[in-house]
């Protein structure tokens, strides 16, 4: 046989070294025993990225391999504890199906290409699009992580105003409300609250480990926890009281609370006088919002509202309405957040023990840092989605990514030709998957940066594989009273890169290389300079505390124009709302066989990203549709039946969970399931994806996705396992 061919294993040094392989090395068992015994072990302090919370971890590495992940007690996030997802990190790192090298779409399939070729081709294309359509033809979306500053620099340098986060599908209403009224976004002093009201904030299914620890501590000390939720969530099970409110009406409940607090003078007069403006306007507005009025709307008895409000007010200042996280649910969500912000102000809880608090430390904004790159100019064009413009002044910086397909398809206000998604999967997380797919097909350039082949990546021309959080550096993090660093525990397993380097290389090929003539270390040192800490020091320690951790309870500086909490604010008037929070009904009304579609997190999965993780998949392989017993009975649905859930935008099939624990007018499912990327074998088509049901639309004040403003019809399509 004569064979001409390549061979893969190449001699790196002198050949003929096979002789060096003695019996002891050749035998796997003997080698493994020796390696287990003599291997070098190191502990690398780093930061988890199985969700966005960024808890501290300690990664144990042996023989160049991660062998265990544990919590880092020194890190304020998690305080040494990690959740189920954090435990599952190794299964992501060593998953044989994750992205291994840059891919380019040719025809209907992806072929591996080199990084050089990928950068070069993408850079050329970006330059071409910029020359032809202007820099604003590029939209860049992201789930902002530690390297967000790099994305800011890239977009400003390129000249595109269209850097946009996942905010409108998450926290836009909260940020809009609190930034306008308080000057910045506060969080809760969970460990010390005495009376806590959650408007759908589900602390134990959307887990932030430190906050769970905090709320449990508070509960143990006797705090009263109230869960406003149409569904009896796991948090409701933990809470002192579940308020089974009609979906989308939390606003009415809160307005009635304000009415009662002002009427009965239960507010902190001193605080209101010294630290707020607009009290009189609020008082005038809420006069009509009686508990009786709220009862009609919310379905919660007036007496209950009165009792809760009185108990709540008595607990001030350690009485809090949680600003929340995923609040982009209804057309009135921003109003609801504003009402909550008013209540918090009336309790005088800002800066108090068990009240609201502002983050203690912050890095300076990247736009304000100087020296490492040329001055960054504001892009000339307006944003594609109008955020920050006349109609959406308050959505500035948050954007409306869910509307991207609409703008691509309409070509308004200008043509969009290129889209880059980093750590973001809007095809499944921003509603109406079908429309996203249709729109992305129109683009000349779609680039996705991710660790696995997401549904958005499936639509890309180029897929750039990011190293996992266990293989890369990121710029530093501030967590509570400490700074921390994500650093590689091991060398990248495959031909992947950190997102910082990906952006840097892209910039060089896209003709804006002069903005990225720095190393990550230089960049980080500049961020850390105000704290007198260096990147090198941080590498060594992983976490460095900035103070002794003791809290001084006092009202912080309020960074609004007036220097006070603005209970009434002209900013909202400019955005088309009233100066003070006011009643606005939700966007759609249940009835005539149409049910409200709700969705949310589970404690064991993150967004759309963890469903292929063997470990987490085994814990929860699919989702189910919660439907009230009475509703199910009317529809002839039994527990375990297969049902079709259909909205005006699409439909899915899923198993029904018939339960008393949900409002009869609503149905609910955990989001993130129903993946359709064949590259993710375990997750492929398991359960149902909410994204086929939810439309792409906007809440008028904050630009949020209002993703629970959708009605569905449910019908039985098949018998269940136990039928």
């Amino acid at each position: 046989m004569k064979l001409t061919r390549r061979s893969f294993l190449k001699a790196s040094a002198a050949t003929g070294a096979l002789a060096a392989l003695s019996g002891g090395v050749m035998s796997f068992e003997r080698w493994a025993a020796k390696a287990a015994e003599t291997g070098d072990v190191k502990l690398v302090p780093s930061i988890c990225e199985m969700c966005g919370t960024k808890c501290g971890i300690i990664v144990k590495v042996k023989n160049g391999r991660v062998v265990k992940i544990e919590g880092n007690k020194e890190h304020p996030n998690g305080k040494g504890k990690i959740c189920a997802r954090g435990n599952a990190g190794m299964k992501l790192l060593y998953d044989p199906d994750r992205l291994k090298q840059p891919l380019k779409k040719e025809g209907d399939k992806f072929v591996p290409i080199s990084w050089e070729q990928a950068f070069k081709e993408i850079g050329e294309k970006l330059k071409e699009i910029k020359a032809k359509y202007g820099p604003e033809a590029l939209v860049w979306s992201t789930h902002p992580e530690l390297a967000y500053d790099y994305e800011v620099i890239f977009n400003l340098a390129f000249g595109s105003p269209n850097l946009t986060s996942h905010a409108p599908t998450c926290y836009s209403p909260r940020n809009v409300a609190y930034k306008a009224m308080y000057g910045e976004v506060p969080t809760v002093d969970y460990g010390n609250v005495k009376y806590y009201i959650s408007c759908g904030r589900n602390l134990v299914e959307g887990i932030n480990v430190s906050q769970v620890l905090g709320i449990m501590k508070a509960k143990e000390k006797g705090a009263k926890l109230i869960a406003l939720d149409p569904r009896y969530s796991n948090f409701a099970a933990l809470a002192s009281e579940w308020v089974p409110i009609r979906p989308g009406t939390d606003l009415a409940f809160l307005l009635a609370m304000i009415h009662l607090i002002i009427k009965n003078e239960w507010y902190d007069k001193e605080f209101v006088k010294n630290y707020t403006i607009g009290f009189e306007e609020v008082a005038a507005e809420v006069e009509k919002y009686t508990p009786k009025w709220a009862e009609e709307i919310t379905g919660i008895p007036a007496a209950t509202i009165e009792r809760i409000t009185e108990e709540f007010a008595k607990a001030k200042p350690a009485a809090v309405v949680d600003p929340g996280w995923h609040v982009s649910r209804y057309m009135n969500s921003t109003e609801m957040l504003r009402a909550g912000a008013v209540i918090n102000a009336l309790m005088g809880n800002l800066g108090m023990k068990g009240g609201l608090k502002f983050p203690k430390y912050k890095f300076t904004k990247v736009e304000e840092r100087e020296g490492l790159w040329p001055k960054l100019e504001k892009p000339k064009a307006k944003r594609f989605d109008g955020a920050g413009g006349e109609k959406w002044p308050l959505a500035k910086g948050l954007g409306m990514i869910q509307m991207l397909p609409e703008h691509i398809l309409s070509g308004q206000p200008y043509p969009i030709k290129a889209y880059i998604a980093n750590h973001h999967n809007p095809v499944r997380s921003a509603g109406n998957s079908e429309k996203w797919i249709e729109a992305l097909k129109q683009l000349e350039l779609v680039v996705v940066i991710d660790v696995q082949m997401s549904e958005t990546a499936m639509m890309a021309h180029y897929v750039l594989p990011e190293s996992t959080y266990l293989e890369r550096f990121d710029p530093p993090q501030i967590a509570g009273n400490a700074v921390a660093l994500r650093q590689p525990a091991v060398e990248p397993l495959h031909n992947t890169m950190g997102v910082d380097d990906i952006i840097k290389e892209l910039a060089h090929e896209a003709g804006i290389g002069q903005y990225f003539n720095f190393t990550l270390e230089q960049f980080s040192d500049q961020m850390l300079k105000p704290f007198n800490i260096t990147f090198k020091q941080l590498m060594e320690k992983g976490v460095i505390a900035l103070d002794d951790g003791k809290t001084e309870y006092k009202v912080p500086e309020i960074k609004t124009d007036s220097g006070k909490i603005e209970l009434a604010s002209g900013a909202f008037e400019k955005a088309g709302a009233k100066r003070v929070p006011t009643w606005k009904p939700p966007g759609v009304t249940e009835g005539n066989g149409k049910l409200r579609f709700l969705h949310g997190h589970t404690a064991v999965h993150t967004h759309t990203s963890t469903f292929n993780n063997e470990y987490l998949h085994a814990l929860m392989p699919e989702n189910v549709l919660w439907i009230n017993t009475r509703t199910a009975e009317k529809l002839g649905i039994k527990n375990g039946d297969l049902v079709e859930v259909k909205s005006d935008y699409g439909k899915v099939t899923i198993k029904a969970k018939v339960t008393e624990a949900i409002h009869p007018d609503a149905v609910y499912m955990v989001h993130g399931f129903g993946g359709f990327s064949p590259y993710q074998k375990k997750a492929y088509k398991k359960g149902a994806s909410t994204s086929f049901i939810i439309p792409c639309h906007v809440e008028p004040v904050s630009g949020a996705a209002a993703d629970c403003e959708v009605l569905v019809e449910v019908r039985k399509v098949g018998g269940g396992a136990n039928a």
Partner: protein
Amino acid sequence: MPKYAMVIDMTKCAACQACTVACEAEWGLPPGEKFTRLEEREIGKFPNVRREFLLIQCQHCDKAPCIEVCPTGATYKREDGIVLLDDKRCAGCKYCMVACPYQARVINHEKGVPEKCRFCYHRVEQGKKPACVSTCIGEARYFGDLEDPNDEIHRIIHQKQAKPLRGDLGTKPSIYYVR
């Protein structure tokens, strides 16, 4: 000789399953095999409904039905109160699974024996807490030594009025519940 006991405060349980996972990780259990399980029930009709959770695992009973019914003596109790199974002696008759009121045993299909929670005796011997206790993100679990009068477990049981699960069955469990 210590006498180990655990308190599970269900009022602080986030139902997040971190304990289930940490336990699986600690013992390297095959997928699907769990030593701690989360039970759930619903009581009442909307809107007067309640959902309750209960974490169940081997209760390390002083009068363990599994030990009584085991025909081979493979299941035994250590002096420190931990109930263990000797894999090599187990004939796999599953009588223990049938007899355990807490349904705490699960079959390991690789080894062919019904396994269960071991109170992480290897960690306990090193002075550490069992994996489920250290991992609990709500700090709902406590572990201690009943023989040691200074152990906080006494205070916790007393203060929280923790009680064994189905004490009426006479099994004298070593896990106390706050519910």
